[in-house]
């Protein structure tokens, strides 16, 4: 199918600001009378606040006030707190001080006398599960959607940490198929225990916030991945009605899952500003971002997988202890199980999950939450199976790969479409797999070549959100996007589905986004790789509504019936006589004149109240197209990727160099090639970081985090990644999306992580580390045969 806009590159409107530095992030805003707040964060991993004596601080010149837990929105454990009297991790904000400038605020913090009573704590889930293990919170140590306590027997703990089949009770479980039969049918059974790091999200822009009150409305300048989706949650956190919130988040310097919706820090300046009667700016330091900016859920687990002689995955038994950090989180384990269920289509499967709280930084969804951790572990197991069964790594994946008849998850539901075999074939061909694999294990001095292939999956689409377009009498097409600007350009790219439907020039389009004042429709969260699928649909239905209205107006003005009319070149014309036509501007002027649904004075009943307010805000300014996405969707929307990698691993230093990397996306029709390339390459960089570099270390004696700066956490740098990374896409349309597109952001990372893990294993003759990251020390220890320094299944130690 040939498109005007879909599959074409364009210049997203925020690019100029980013390149020239004119882009305004939350901390670039300044308003008259603004004062600065700084946080006092907990020095203890778990404590009770006994006393806060701020008299001396408050008496200082230039100090305006203090904000404590009593002043803000109360929450129930283990929900995140804005400020707390029971800090549950080192860095948990206890109170804030506002002053004329940040230096004075910091000087004042030093003068507050805080008395804390230490409480029991744990930084390792398994420590907490021991018979007398400490609980991360007073209410218990596990959170299977409710707080309670769980302790295993000493034998359960011993079995688990020594990698034997776990016997410890698991509060959550799902399964399908006949597991026993699956293993009975297996010619090969692999059993591995594993650990994956829960490392920080590390958003480059710390979550700084400015708030002030004007005419009874609270203005918040923040940094979020989503835009409209944040509004109801932030309003509730601030204790105000949605209409009284002005929320500006035009740019977001990275969120990666940590800024999906309203997070606690986003509401602190609002409360403080109200208390002080002054605008309040709260800049978050890099160190604080490591505390409050959240981290990935860590896994400690065990997998048993059965393979038939041909290489089909017959059964998978998965057991995961999740490190949820100190606040409510979870879902990663189930998502990990879901990923296995779709990528390998096992005949039977079981997932058992023990979600444990620890006194570490709060966790949240991070790019491929669950899917990417398990990709790092299970994909090397696929290679091990291939080795033992004498199969090629790509061939064994292809044998198990999902197609459009695939099923997934506990309910074995359908997918909208899937073409993983095609993705593997495309990648194998472009990468020259059959030749490349011959280099596996080749020595060049101290270096050895490793070849790897990895797959990634994430569900990539939702439905039921609203679209809003407007055509003004000047002929301009206004595309109102409630999608947040999380860095993928999807806020603009998805509006091109509307431009496509309206057959208009992109130059005549104006994308509105980034502020509630821009009258934006209700939108999904910008996470879960779902925006592309979800909002091309929403924009499409809004455009269809506009087209319907244009035809009605044309019929009214020019005569005949609406179905006599069509659109092209920004005109509505009579199909029988193209000369009988109206320009979009003329139609828009008529719409204003006609009022009613045409100009947004009325609206469909099923649209969200956020969209209703947006329509009210622009009513009477042009022709309004607004609709809720009620298009059919027949199943889970899969985002699939494959990564191919060649590395050289230096056995003497433990360092690897990525010689070549290729990513192949299976995400339906390509919506925005440059955006997709950015996702695939950016995802790969993340993946390389997870597999080989990024650390999350806690001192278990005192609960202190070791990684509170970039250089300590070690995200990949430009010399840790290949200079060039190739990409491709299968580009087969998904039937459930009007432009054929699906999302792909998250799996792009998982496949790269998996590919690198597989290549590291390949270079070492198939040795499985079963843990991320595989840092140089781990390789050196292995090669020198001296055993690893870390304890079995220990977490937060590397």
């Amino acid at each position, binding site marked *: 199918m040939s498109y005007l806009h879909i599959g074409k590159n364009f210049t997203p409107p925020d690019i100029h600001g980013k390149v020239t530095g004119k882009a305004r992030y939350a901390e670039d805003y300044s308003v008259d009378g603004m004062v600065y707040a700084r946080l006092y964060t907990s020095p203890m991993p778990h404590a009770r606040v006994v006393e806060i004596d701020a008299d001396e601080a408050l008496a200082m010149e230039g100090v305006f006030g203090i904000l404590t837990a009593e002043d803000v929105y109360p929450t129930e454990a283990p929900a995140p707190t804005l400020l707390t009297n029971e800090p549950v991790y080192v860095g948990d904000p206890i109170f804030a001080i506002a002053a004329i400038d940040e230096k004075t605020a910091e000087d004042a913090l030093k003068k507050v006398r805080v008395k804390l009573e230490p409480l029991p704590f744990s930084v390792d889930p398994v420590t907490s599960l021991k018979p007398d293990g400490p609980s991360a919170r007073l209410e218990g140590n596990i959170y299977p959607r409710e707080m309670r306590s769980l302790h295993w027997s000493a034998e359960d703990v011993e079995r688990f940490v020594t990698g034997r089949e776990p016997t410890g009770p698991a509060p959550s479980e799902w399964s399908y198929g006949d597991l026993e039969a699956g293993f009975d049918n297996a010619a090969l059974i692999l059993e591995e225990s594993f650990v994956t790091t829960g490392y920080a999200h590390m958003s480059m822009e710390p979550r700084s916030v400015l708030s002030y009150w004007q005419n009874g409305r609270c203005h918040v300048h923040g940094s979020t991945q989503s835009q409209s989706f944040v509004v109801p949650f932030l309003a509730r956190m601030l204790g105000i009605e949605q209409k009284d919130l002005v929320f500006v988040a035009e740019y977001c310097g990275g969120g990666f899952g940590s800024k999906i919706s309203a997070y606690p820090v986003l509401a602190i300046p609002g409360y403080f500003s109200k208390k002080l009667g002054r605008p309040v700016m709260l800049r978050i330091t890099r160190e604080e971002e490591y505390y409050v900016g959240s981290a990935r859920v860590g896994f400690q687990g065990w997998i048993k997988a059965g393979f038939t002689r041909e290489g089909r995955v017959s059964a998978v038994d998965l057991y995961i202890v999740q490190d949820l950090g100190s606040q409510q989180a979870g879902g990663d384990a189930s998502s990990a199980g879901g990923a296995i269920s779709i990528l390998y289509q096992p005949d039977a499967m079981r997932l058992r999950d023990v979600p444990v709280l620890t006194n570490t930084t709060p966790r949240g969804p991070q790019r491929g939450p669950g899917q990417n951790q398990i990709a790092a572990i299970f994909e090397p197991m696929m290679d091990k199976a291939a080795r033992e069964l004498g199969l090629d790594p790509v061939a064994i994946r292809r044998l198990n790969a999902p197609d459009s008849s695939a099923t997934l998850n506990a309910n074995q539901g359908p997918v909208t479409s899937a073409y993983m075999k095609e993705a593997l074939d495309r990648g194998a061909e472009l990468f020259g797999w059959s030749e490349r694999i011959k280099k596996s294990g080749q020595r060049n001095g101290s270096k050895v070549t490793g070849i790897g292939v990895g797959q990634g999956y994430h569900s990539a689409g939702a439905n039921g959100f609203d679209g809003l377009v407007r055509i003004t009498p000047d002929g301009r097409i206004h595309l109102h996007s409630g999608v947040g600007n999380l860095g993928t350009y999807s806020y603009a790219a998805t509006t091109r589905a509307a431009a496509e439907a309206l057959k208009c020039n992109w130059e005549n389009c104006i994308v509105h986004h980034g502020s509630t004042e821009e009258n934006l429709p209700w939108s999904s969260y910008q996470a879960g790789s779902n925006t592309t699928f979800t909002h091309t649909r929403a924009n499409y239905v809004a455009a269809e509504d506009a087209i319907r209205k244009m035809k009605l107006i044309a019929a009214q003005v020019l005569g005949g019936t609406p179905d006599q009319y069509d659109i092209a070149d920004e005109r509505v014309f009579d199909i029988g006589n193209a000369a009988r036509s109206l320009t979009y501007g003329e139609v828009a002027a008529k719409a204003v004149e006609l009022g009613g649904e045409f100009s947004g004075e009325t609206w469909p009943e099923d649209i969200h109240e956020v969209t209703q307010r947006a329509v009210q805000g622009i009513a009477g300014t042009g022709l309004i197209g607004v609709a809720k996405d009620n298009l059919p969707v027949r199943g889970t929307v899969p985002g699939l990727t494959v990564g191919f990698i060649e590395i050289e691993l230096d056995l003497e230093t433990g360092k690897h160099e990525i010689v070549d990397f290729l990513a192949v996306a299976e995400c339906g029709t390509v919506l925005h090639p440059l955006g997709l390339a950015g996702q695939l390459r950016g995802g790969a960089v993340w993946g390389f970081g997870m597999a080989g570099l990024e650390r999350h270390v806690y001192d278990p004696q005192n609960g202190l985090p070791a990684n509170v700066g970039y250089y300590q956490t070690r995200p990949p740098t430009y010399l840790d990644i290949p200079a060039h990374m190739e990409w491709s896409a299968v580009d087969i349309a998904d039937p459930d999306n009007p432009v054929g597109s699906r999302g792909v952001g998250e799996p792009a990372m998982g496949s790269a992580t998996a590919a690198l893990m597989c290549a590291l294993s390949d270079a070492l003759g198939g040795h499985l580390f079963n843990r991320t990251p595989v840092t140089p020390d781990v390789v*050196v220890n292995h090669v020198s045969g001296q055993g690893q320094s870390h304890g079995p299944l220990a977490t937060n130690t590397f």
Partner: protein
Amino acid sequence: MSAYDVMPDMELFQPVTVEDAAALAERLGSRGWVLAGGQDTYGWLKDRAKHPKAMVDLSSIDVLNGIEETDGGGVKIGAMTTLREVSRDQLIRARYGLLAAAAARVASPQIRNQGTLGGNVSQDTRCWYYRRGLSCYRAGGNICYADSPEGMNREHAIFGASRCVAVSPSDTATALVALDATMVIQNTRGVHRVAAGDFFVGPAVNITRMTVLRPGDILTAIELPADWAHAEYYFEKVADRNVWDFALVSIAAAFRTENGTIRDARLVCGAVSCVPRRLTSVERAVIGKPRNDSTGEAVAALASEGARPLNYNHFKAPLMDNLVRRALRA
């Protein structure tokens, strides 16, 4: 406790002569802080983990800048010369490629543009507990948090620990010790010179300082002797990341060979102890042998002999041995 991020108030002095700087430093004593490129300094001060009352900024002292030849074929490098200049200077590259290579591996280009050679050798350790501002031994306290039964000490020392287990983070320090450089120190009592090998101080000798520099001392220059110019060199820094990282283990080696055999050698490892560690037993063992794989294989294990690993840094011993192999192979 909080994550401080703003420079606290302090006095700033910007002398234009070394004499004035030394006089100021002397007068301020432990209340003062000598500022070079600031790459180590500002972290400490903005985190409010160190609390000097005044800074003596050396950046306006012209004589501290630049690279010049000395009589007898050596080179003198002003302490305030940036790492970028050291890594790119033709004279250094031609005569002391080891130092140029080491300087080029420091941190990142941005940091090398700002950081100085004097600052690089005088910088404080990167032990994360200490950097957190905890009152450990090194900060004048009673305890080491890193060397404890559950301490997280992957980056810490395997040699020369004495209560404190921090390591020297400097990349250029190893090269300067290997090149047998001389550190020129000035204070109000005059100028004195210290061999690079004696410039660095371990915790057994002084647990709160990394070098012999005391309050009032200004490191003014680093002199490289002709003895080790134009030698055969090997430098390698193994770090988790290839940019902006500190060494897990590094090696700087200089060899003099004659008729295919090693006549003299100096090998120095970084990040294995609080001071750059001369591998004297390796040096002795390679004299008279050819510089090749089999020599490397024969002597490698001497490098880590006597190592005392902590909980998480066992890997440093084989890594040291491997780096010796590579130095002899290259």
